[in-house]
């Protein structure tokens, strides 16, 4: 097979595409679908600028082949806001000033959405471990960390704002992102 027909749901919208086997996901998203929020920086899976969610799992769009999205759903930064209303992670990044040049930001935010989808209330160490593969040249990470912890509080029903221990641990709702992605038994996916 050199040309692969596929159905893929991108940010909630169904697309029927035929992609060459050798097309990467980032080429498909940017060049074919015009989703320019996906950034390419290192091109070798070390920086995370190209992070998108494939069935809610973070992948490097720079290296994963487009046909791997067959029958799956893709989420990019363009799919987060609802109209004028930002996603809580986007809001937290803006309010904490967790970006400067902004080039890493779409990837950072998508990785955060994936993290909070599987671990709604991560500790600071868990955030650092999970986000290790997303590199920012500008911020020094402190504000990014604060924004992520704040987003976690907001999304799990905690208090808004940047208070320390104000979060309300009880409510675990989370805005449609997958609740506890992954611990699905032993045979993976």
């Amino acid at each position, binding site marked *: *097979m*050199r040309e*692969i027909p596929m159905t893929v749901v991108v940010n909630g919208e169904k697309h029927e595409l035929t992609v*060459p*086997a*050798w*097309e*990467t996901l980032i*080429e498909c998203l940017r060049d074919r679908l015009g989703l320019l929020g996906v950034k390419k920086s290192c*091109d*070798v*899976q*070390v920086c*995370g600028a190209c*992070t998108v969610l494939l069935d809610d*799992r*973070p*992948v*490097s769009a720079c*290296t*994963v*082949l487009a*046909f791997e999205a067959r029958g799956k759903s893709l989420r990019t930064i363009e799919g987060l806001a609802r109209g004028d209303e930002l996603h809580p992670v986007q809001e937290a990044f803006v309010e904490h000033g967790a970006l400067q040049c902004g080039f890493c930001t779409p990837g950072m935010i998508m*990785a955060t959405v*994936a993290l909070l989808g599987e671990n709604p209330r991560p500790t600071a160490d868990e955030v650092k*471990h*999970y986000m*290790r*593969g*997303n590199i920012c040249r500008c911020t020094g990470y402190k504000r990014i960390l604060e924004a992520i912890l704040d987003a976690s509080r907001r999304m799990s029903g905690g208090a808004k704002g940047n208070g320390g221990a104000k979060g309300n641990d009880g409510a675990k709702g989370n805005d449609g992102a997958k609740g506890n992605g*992954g*611990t699905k038994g*032993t*045979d*993976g*996916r």
Partner: protein
Amino acid sequence: MLRSFELCEPTSVAEASVLLARHGDAARIYAGGTELILAMKEGLIHYDHLVNVKTIPGLAGVRLDGGALRIGAATPHRVLERDPIVRERFPAVARMETDVANVRVREVGTLGGNLCFAEPHADPGALLQVFDATVRIEKKGGGRTILLEQLFVGPFETCLEGDELLTEIVVPPLPEHSAAAYLKFGFLERPSVGVGVAVTLDDGRVADARIAVGSVGPVPRRMREAEAVLKGKAIAESVAALPEAGQIAARAAEAITDLHGSAEYKEHLVGVLLRRAWEQALAAVDGRAGR
């Protein structure tokens, strides 16, 4: 941009093997592609046919079989990291997996791909050797099972024939009163040094000691001479003997100077990580932690 290629999607190991045999050097197995696609994008290699093994039913997944962990070759790192059985029964394996690469590589990259690429700077090949892990290799019309340590022939080189596939990794349980630990150090994406150990205690003595070192030299290796130094000793004596064991292991690892550090530096780290890993494993046996 990648050069064009043909994607083949077999539905059985035999079919994949036939495709590999038919196309020879022009074909290559494609699992997660985290190594292969990178190398192809850089133009270092090119294949006219990629054989996607993820379409073969049963090649991915983890199960327990008589105490042993059977891991399908196409199982992504992330599954091993999070699987409840792996975490409970083989905690050192789950922990090692949480520190492979970054989360995106772990979601897509498979254990089989990691082992078959035989990049010297990798983690699983070293830790799994202290479990005496075996690998199942299959082709059309036959198969063989070998010790994992026999898989690695040299940097980027395994003993697999062109039409063979790695299908399963089998990790036997450690004996009772045992624990394993794996520690690594690196400052680039990949480890500079990785040391795996397993210890079995019996009545206050080291009934068995297993040590493997990876990333330092051409292939990850069991360090049997260094193990012999620790075996049979009382616990405190084994700790006192760690410098000697570390020196033997460092020499046997055939350290090379590369981007990840000088040979001398890596040899030093082998000793340091061995000591820490040994102490960690001792503390973990039957909840000795904290004592």
